């Protein structure tokens, strides 16, 4: 019986490969870059930014690029191995979860460089790329507290991973600079794509009096905006804030502004550094000073935000850019203060 199933399998694969074509001939000297994501790149958010970065490497640096979406931790090693052993030079692993596997792969493939977004460990060829989105969400917190009439603001997250917890921590800190008594609600839905759950989490917070909501639920963020929109439609007052990318045009009627990561530009910068041979041995911090992180106000709603609040926020942004203000974040990179 098993023999026959094997035969079925062989049949299937032979059938598929009957009209096999050849792979692209390798152009010698071409630089190869790969991207690993743990979620779909069609999320119009965190992973989409990385994919755009990969395409930017292709278009700007002429890199040969490839992408794989992994589904389980067991695939991490396999993907690294496959890419590294087929000659990829630079592998972007877009998520902290890749770090252990990247360290193992780094040891095995010294000629390949591994960049782990949000990673916490590093080696000569393993580089954590730390997006300091906290700086953007700190500014978002200021706007939130300034715009809140109720003194209650809310945060809706997908899964409580360090990048999310960090942005929420900074959001709360930013809010307190404007209103020390502000009350901050926090909910997690356990999912990055369950829009309905994100909406219900937002509705529950709105019901508790929150009137400005920020999210970090990636593809499900629309649920938060929808909840705010419905509140407004029902005669209430509420605002939302975008995260990860400039979401101001997603719901231009309710989004005051967005905390933005310019992932593509950051990838390009990292790749350029790699080409100069100076990448490695230390983490890369990509924040406001590197112009990777920003907070972008929604031009369509500029008139509803008090000018003083905008001015205050802009001033703090300049301080952060200048490195004169350190935004609180969850430290997680080896060697950082507070990390064992």
């Amino acid at each position, binding site marked *: *019986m*098993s*023999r*026959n*199933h*094997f035969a*079925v*399998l062989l*049949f*299937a*694969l032979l*059938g*598929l*490969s*009957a*009209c*096999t*074509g*050849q*792979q692209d001939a390798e152009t010698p000297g071409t630089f190869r870059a*790969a991207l690993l994501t*743990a979620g*779909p*790149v*069609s999320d119009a958010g965190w992973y989409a930014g990385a994919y755009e970065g990969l395409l930017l490497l292709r278009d700007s640096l002429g890199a040969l690029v*490839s*992408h*794989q*979406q*992994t*589904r*389980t*931790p*067991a*695939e*991490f*090693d*396999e*993907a690294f*191995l*496959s*890419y590294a*052993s*087929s000659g990829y030079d630079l592998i972007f692993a877009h998520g*902290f*979860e890749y*770090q*252990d596997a990247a360290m193992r792969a780094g040891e095995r493939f010294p000629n390949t460089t591994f960049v782990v977004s949000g990673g*916490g460990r590093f080696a000569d060829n393993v580089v954590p790329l730390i997006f300091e989105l906290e700086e953007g969400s700190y500014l978002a917190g200021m706007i939130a507290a300034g715009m809140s009439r109720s003194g209650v603001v809310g945060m809706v997250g997908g*899964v*409580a*991973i*360090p990048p999310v917890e960090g942005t929420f921590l900074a959001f709360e800190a930013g809010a307190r600079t404007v209103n020390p008594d502000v009350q901050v609600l926090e909910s997690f839905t*356990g999912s990055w794509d369950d829009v309905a759950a994100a909406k219900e989490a937002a509705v529950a917070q709105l019901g508790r009096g929150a009137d400005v909501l920020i999210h970090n639920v990636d593809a499900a963020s629309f649920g938060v905006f929808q909840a705010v929109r419905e509140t407004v439609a029902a005669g209430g007052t509420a605002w939302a804030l975008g995260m990860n990318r400039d979401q101001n045009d997603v719901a231009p009627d309710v989004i005051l502004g967005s905390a933005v990561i310019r992932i593509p530009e950051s990838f390009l910068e990292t790749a350029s550094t790699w080409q100069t041979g100076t990448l490695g041995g230390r983490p890369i911090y990509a924040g406001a000073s590197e112009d990777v992180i920003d907070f972008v106000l929604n031009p369509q709603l500029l008139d509803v935000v008090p000018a003083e609040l905008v001015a205050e926020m802009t001033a703090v942004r300049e301080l952060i850019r200048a490195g004169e203000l350190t935004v609180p974040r*969850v*430290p*997680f990179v080896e060697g950082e203060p507070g*990390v*064992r």
Partner: protein
Amino acid sequence: MYEHGGRTAWVVGAAALAATAVVAAVLLWVGGYDPARAAAAMWSGAFGTRGAFVSVTLVRSVPFLLTGLAVAVAFRAGVWNIGAEGQLYAGAIAAVWVGIEGAALPAWVLLPAVLIAAGLAGALWALIPALMKLRLGVGEVITTILMNFVGINFAAYLVHGPLQEPRGVFPQTEQIADAARLPALVPGSRLHVGFAVAVAMAVVLAAVLRWTRWGFRVRAVGASPRAAWAAGRIDAGAVVLATFLASGALAGLAGGVEIAGLTYALYEGLSPGWGYTAIAVALLAALNPVAVVGTAILFGALEAGAGAMQREAGIPAVWVVAVEALVILAVLATDQLMRTRVRGAQTPGDDEGNVSPEPARA
């Protein structure tokens, strides 16, 4: 048990597969991708090189194999354990806990302890639906599915809470001790001893089912609970309980082997649903443990090929998933058509043309 064979069966099978290949190719072509490159990538990723086969296909087959065995043994006894996924998580949790806490122990103690703990935890996870079935009469199909969700969320809770790595930042556990890791089976490859363990389990299970009194009782209860009770004086409850626990242990072992052989730490989303795919693995193998080895490798190859389709042919994950679904449907249809043709020619019924009823499944 059924038999394949005959020329018609092959013609039917080839036709079904050809049709699927055409459908898949057209789909990819409509989507703007090169079907030939996709097929080539799929082949090379699964079988193209020794490295691909050993380090990817076989490695991927291990969780399918162990969970497939778990499902096969349960289904053989008429226990519809859809809960391999949750039991796998339970095993992974136990394995990682023992693997970290037992760091002081030598490998020859720690490694078996890790695997045994995983098996026990899986069995324990299965005990709840087993008792609900036997004591309260609640069908196991639904309780095991529910236990899956509980297990997945419980693992998520643990990696955010009690078992989180010492820095308390990343939602994952600490890595298990070196002594708790499964060594490589083929030097220089990623294939770990877990594969050998899994194959050994398949052989043991096949032998138990065929040659032991307990295995016979399992088969009898699964084939006809009424006859097992009336003619065999078999205590179906005891058989169901033991089989349920054995099934849970195998699924738990799958989680333990995944931790000790590959990931070395527990993460959220450790399994992409192996426990569900395992049902397909087991049923395609007609619940025969030795055949499960083959179907598990088939699914391993499918997954390996799917990864390569993304990497080498630039086909997005969503397309790859759709093609995977098509391949499963094709294999299913082929398998079914072969059985039908062959059986159709031999169907005896009784001499009155009547066919005896089959025991209910759910």
